[in-house]
């Protein structure tokens, strides 16, 4: 379990995360929902130890964040961070050399599943293919947790469907997934838990099936209740 415990983050006088508390369970898909600027990406970076927090604690399986974290948690940022001159093949080799928990077999499977060409240069990839490669690099790591920043943003519907199918497969089974999005509609029925973030605060945290069963509401309905733009 990833525990985010009263995390506060300030940039100068501006508070971007305020007493944020929630959990990410193994074997569950948790979705961090918020409008642009709500603090979603900041929070993912904080979990990854890429940014110190001002107050509060983040624990992974009970342990505070340390350098061993990268064997347990993979992070898929919102853009591909590999240099443009590299080929897809180069990227995979880089990952293999760099990470002990790189799973070659799964990487090969994903390469063909996403129909990516090993010889293609990063600079020549379409947005959709760049997003798929980005996801591949995270998914092929044998980690217990997977964080993804806006995996569905800015790509065509067929690529989105293909990426969504990852969430219904054994590729993420038994792992704890935390993803962010600002467009929940298409993936409503895929996620287990929703955490609504607004101006750096958690305003709701709930299990999606439970809210449907008890209140007959969709995640969108709850969002309409709590956000007042």
């Amino acid at each position, binding site marked *: 379990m990833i525990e985010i415990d009263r995390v506060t983050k300030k940039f100068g006088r501006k508070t971007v995360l305020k007493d944020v508390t929630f959990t990410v369970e193994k074997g569950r898909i948790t979705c961090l929902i918020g409008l642009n600027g709500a603090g979603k990406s900041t929070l993912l970076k904080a979990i990854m130890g890429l940014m110190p927090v001002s107050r509060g604690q983040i624990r992974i399986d009970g342990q505070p964040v340390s350098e061993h974290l990268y064997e347990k948690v993979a992070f898929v940022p919102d853009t591909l961070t590999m240099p443009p001159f590299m080929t897809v093949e180069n990227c995979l080799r880089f990952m293999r050399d760099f990470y002990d928990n790189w799973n070659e077999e799964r990487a090969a499977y994903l390469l063909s599943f996403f129909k990516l060409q090993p010889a293609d240069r990063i600079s020549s990839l379409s947005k959709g293919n760049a997003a798929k490669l980005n996801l591949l690099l995270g998914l092929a790591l044998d980690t217990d947790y997977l964080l993804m920043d806006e995996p569905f943003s800015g790509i065509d519907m067929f690529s989105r469907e293909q990426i969504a199918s990852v969430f*219904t497969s054994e590729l993420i*089974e038994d792992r704890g997934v935390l993803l962010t999005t600002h467009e929940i509609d298409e993936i409503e*029925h*895929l996620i*287990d838990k929703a955490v609504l973030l607004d101006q750096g605060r958690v305003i709701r945290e709930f299990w999606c*099936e439970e809210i*449907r069963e008890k209140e007959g509401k969709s995640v969108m309905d709850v969002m309409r209740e709590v956000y007042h733009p």
Partner: protein
Amino acid sequence: MTERDDFAAPAFNHRDPVYLQVVRHFKIGIATGRLSAGQTVPSRRELAAMMKINPNTAQRAYREMEDQGLIVTEGNAPSRITTDEKVLGAIREELITEAIDNFIDSVRQIGVPINELLEKIRSRYESKTAEDKGASS
């Protein structure tokens, strides 16, 4: 062998629990004969992939169906649709009652006398059936 198409994804609405929508989809399949008694059902993983749902939801749907006696599992064999006539009959009854209740709810607001309504249903049903026959031949 199970045909993949038998378990194709229904269009999910966002307000009813997804697992119950899956259960309902199975019930309709059984009532319409698309799924047959004793037929093997996909594994939890396969079902998740076919219906494009979370594996946890597939698991929960199967648990619910086991509880309702819709599917049965013996030992390590793959689960099957029940062959229990009582359960199968009850599914058909349930779906019919549900459809009629929905119909009554909407038609009652208009306030049609029951005899007129029954007459209209009969004539509508017959003309629709004839239309479908005409379209398919």
